[in-house]
């Protein structure tokens, strides 16, 4: 909870930086603030299983703290990457403030206990992102991205709200624990419109994690937004959305899984197919990563589908989020540095191994991780998903996941091939900021370390 407040305060401090002329120090303040926020969050770990605040509006229980950790860690790396990007830009303070506000929303999504906080969390996270997506003012693509994101996001919010309203209508409460107990007291006699509400919420959440057929915004928005904002969307936003889904569908609606599992299975299958098949024909790396994020979303949704409410599912989704976030930070970090001249196609990566072997190596690690190959974090992430799925009746989904994973390997390797095999137009060394190098290298190392010692993370968040 203190973490949430610290981040909110940081956002306001960032706004003030412009006025009080400490822009240069802002990055350091933000980084220290994030560390402080996480330290404050972790302190709450000690005090017990679940701490609720404000009349049960919000609770930092262990999954919440774990997800917050991922979000804050990602944010930490992101700010280092981004500082350089926004440095020339006078808007650095605005950007930082908006991102920090979005993080506040993300943290709320990890810890909400009430539909109100869920809804507000989503909006607090989304609205700054609408702005950020559109933040390249002169670039119509960026404008379009922001616009599409906004319209479709609001549209999805409307569905979310309709769902919430229906659920409220049936249960008479916005509190997820009360909804849970309402479900168990009603047994099998739930009014039909309650179930419709659940499905509407599922649809809205699927939109947020960009699962098919509610994924349409993602590729366009990812492509149009400034690269670093895309990185933000595919890491922090995803993680937060999954934290929310986890809580919503495992805690609140865990007992009506009959209603939503079949739908979810369909959504996953469709996402796997559409995402991987479309990613395979992309010529823009950024767009490819967008589709790949859809496929990863499908993988994480599989854990929800498995719905075992056991630690392994929670573990799995936390680990997956972490692996995916870290891998994405590396990938987007490299992408951002490679595509500074504006070309975001695979050709931009041609000959990168010669121009910057370090970047190429890190990118390779990231790609292998995203493709799920040992000994990277991505492999264990996939492994956990498979493990949770194998006990379910949805074995066909597992086979589909395997088949599409092979397709996934195809497009991730395309990047690797471009870097090592193709001859680039430029041969001079690629200039990369030291700070960026450090972030990219550190995240790549973390990817490998997580792959070598996955126990570390699950031991860390022993549930």
């Amino acid at each position, binding site marked *: 909870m203190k973490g949430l407040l610290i981040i909110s305060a940081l956002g306001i401090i960032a706004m003030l930086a412009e006025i009080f002329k400490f822009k240069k120090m802002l990055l350091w303040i933000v980084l220290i603030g994030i560390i402080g926020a996480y330290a404050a969050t972790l302190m709450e770990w000690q005090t017990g299983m679940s701490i609720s605040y404000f009349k049960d509006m919000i609770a930092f229980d262990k999954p919440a703290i774990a997800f917050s950790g991922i979000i804050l860690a990602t944010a930490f790396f992101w700010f280092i990457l981004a500082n350089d990007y926004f440095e020339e830009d006078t808007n650095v303070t605005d950007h930082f403030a908006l991102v920090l506000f979005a993080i506040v929303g993300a943290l709320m999504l990890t810890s909400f206990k009430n539909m109100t906080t869920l809804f507000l969390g989503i909006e607090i996270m989304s609205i700054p992102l609408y702005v950020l997506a559109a933040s390249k003012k002169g670039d119509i693509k960026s404008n379009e991205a922001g616009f599409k994101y906004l319209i479709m996001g609001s549209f999805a919010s409307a569905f979310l709200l309709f769902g919430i309203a229906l659920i409220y209508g049936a249960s008479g409460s916005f509190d997820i624990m009360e909804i849970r107990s309402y479900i168990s007291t009603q047994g099998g006699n739930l009014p039909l419109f309650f179930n419709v509400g659940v499905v509407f919420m599922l649809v809205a959440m699927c939109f947020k994690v960009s699962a098919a057929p509610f994924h349409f915004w993602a590729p366009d928005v990812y492509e149009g937004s400034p690269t670093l904002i895309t990185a933000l969307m595919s890491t922090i936003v995803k993680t937060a959305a999954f934290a929310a889904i986890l809580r919503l569908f495992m805690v609140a609606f865990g007992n009506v899984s009959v209603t939503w599992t079949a739908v979810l299975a369909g959504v996953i299958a469709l996402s796997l197919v559409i995402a991987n098949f479309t990613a395979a024909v992309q010529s823009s790396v950024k767009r490819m990563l967008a589709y790949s994020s859809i496929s990863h979303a499908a993988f994480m949704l599989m854990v929800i589908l498995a719905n075992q409410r056991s630690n392994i599912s929670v573990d799995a989704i936390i680990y997956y989020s972490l692996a995916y976030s870290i891998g994405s930070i590396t990938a987007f970090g490299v992408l951002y540095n490679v595509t500074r001249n504006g070309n975001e196609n695979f050709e931009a990566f041609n000959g990168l191994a010669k121009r910057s072997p370090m970047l190429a190596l890190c990118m390779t690690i990231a790609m292998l991780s995203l493709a799920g190959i040992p000994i990277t974090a991505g492999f264990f992430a996939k492994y956990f998903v498979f493990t949770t799925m*194998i006990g379910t009746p949805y074995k066909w989904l597992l086979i589909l996941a395997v088949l599409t994973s092979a397709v996934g390997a195809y497009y991730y390797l395309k990047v690797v091939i471009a870097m090592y095999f193709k001859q680039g137009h430029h041969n001079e060394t690629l200039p990369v900021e030291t700070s960026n190098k450090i972030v990219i290298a550190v995240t790549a190392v973390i990817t490998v370390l997580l792959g070598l010692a996955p126990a570390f993370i699950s031991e860390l968040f022993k549930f």
Partner: protein
Amino acid sequence: MLTALLILFPFLAALLVFFTKGNNARNMAMLFSVVEFVISMAAFFQFKNNPDSALLSFNTAWVPSLGIRLSAAIDGLSLLMVLLTTFLVPLIILSSYKNNYNTPNYFYGLILMMQMALVGVFVANDGFLFYVFWELALIPIYFICLLWGGENRSAITFKFFVYTLLGSLFMLIGLIYLYNHTNVEGLKSWAIRDLYEAGRSLTASQQSAVFWLIFIAFAIKMPIFPLHTWQPDTYVTAPTQGTMLLSGIMLKMGTFGVIKWLLPIVPLGLAKWGSTAICLSAIGVVYASIIAIQQKDFKRLIAYSSIAHVGLIAAGILAANQQGIQGAMMQMLAHGVNVIGLFFIAEILLQQTGTRDIPSLGGIRNLNANFAILFLIIVLGSVALPLTNGFVGEFLLINGIYQYNAGFAAFAGLTVILGAVYMLRGYQNIMLGEVKPSVHFGKLASTEKAVLVIICITIIAFGVYPKPLNDIAEQGTKAILQMMK
């Protein structure tokens, strides 16, 4: 201890080599691989003295909450495979002495990495660890093929990678399924024994599913008809050292996998589907042999011959009797040595004459008689002439298959004839006859000679006196069969 050293040493060596500049990388890699061989010999003698020695195994926790352990041990079967690996890798490195690869540090580093992964696959006693090494072996070879390969390499290695990865993922599913059925005092476990037990507790239909899930991965790796089409292209395109790694050692991952990670797990699945799989293997033997007859590119010819050989090995393994499995083990060793010899010959031909196209070669026997003799010995090993290393395995294999089904044996046994047809045809057209005017062939470099001579000595020595390895293979097979009961 020794086992851990066998895995760690090439890894550390690879790291060292990565950071070496210039051709020193090659010398260092050579040195390290020889040291690795010495270590494996130590393991060999240790095994001979005391197969249960604590030196030959290690077992520590990795991810305790998931029952994953870093557990590895050398048993008879793995010892043979490890010896094959550690014996071939120095030869493979030595065979590259005439080539000047750019960025040799990466090239040799990757080879050593590959060695690490291969040894890991062979010694792993934990299903998860096995899978990790299995996948890990794919990455160095992918880069070796991609960076130093020939024409059209990106598309071909791509196919290879995706194809094998797909198979592996199915295996992962199968293994996880087994893992899910393990129960060691209420906990799940990845230990191989527990997986065996879990597998055998399944019903016949479940076992069948697991059989296919896991077998597909191995079948692609070997490769078995009709999952083989990645192989000829990849072998032809890969740099020769890569091809040697692929065919000499990596292919054995598949056959090894079937013996250790499939047979004891799903006896009922095997009973139900074994004959189908053997049938495919046997078809592959004849099919690939017939294709090999008309191949123009010598390297492609060997590639197809390799499919034929491995088909026979697979059939023998799936027959699941003493002779079949033991023969497979012996043949795996023999094939490893012979096939890298043949690929090296192809490489020498290409370097000396500028082509591997059989019709445009001819009469090289006139230009270099020693080369002709060495070549011939390797050819004879490959066609499994008695008193060469290929014979022991082939005899036992056909014997094993015969006990399973005489018809399959007679059919697969056609390799005895067809093998002679394509190998002798190739040999004759390349080496014999008058020298073609366009063909030039000089002396062999001393490293080349050394490689070929070592291979030839091995071929004959283990053909005449296979006992040291054969005893281990016999014991290893007995152990596997014991576990299958």
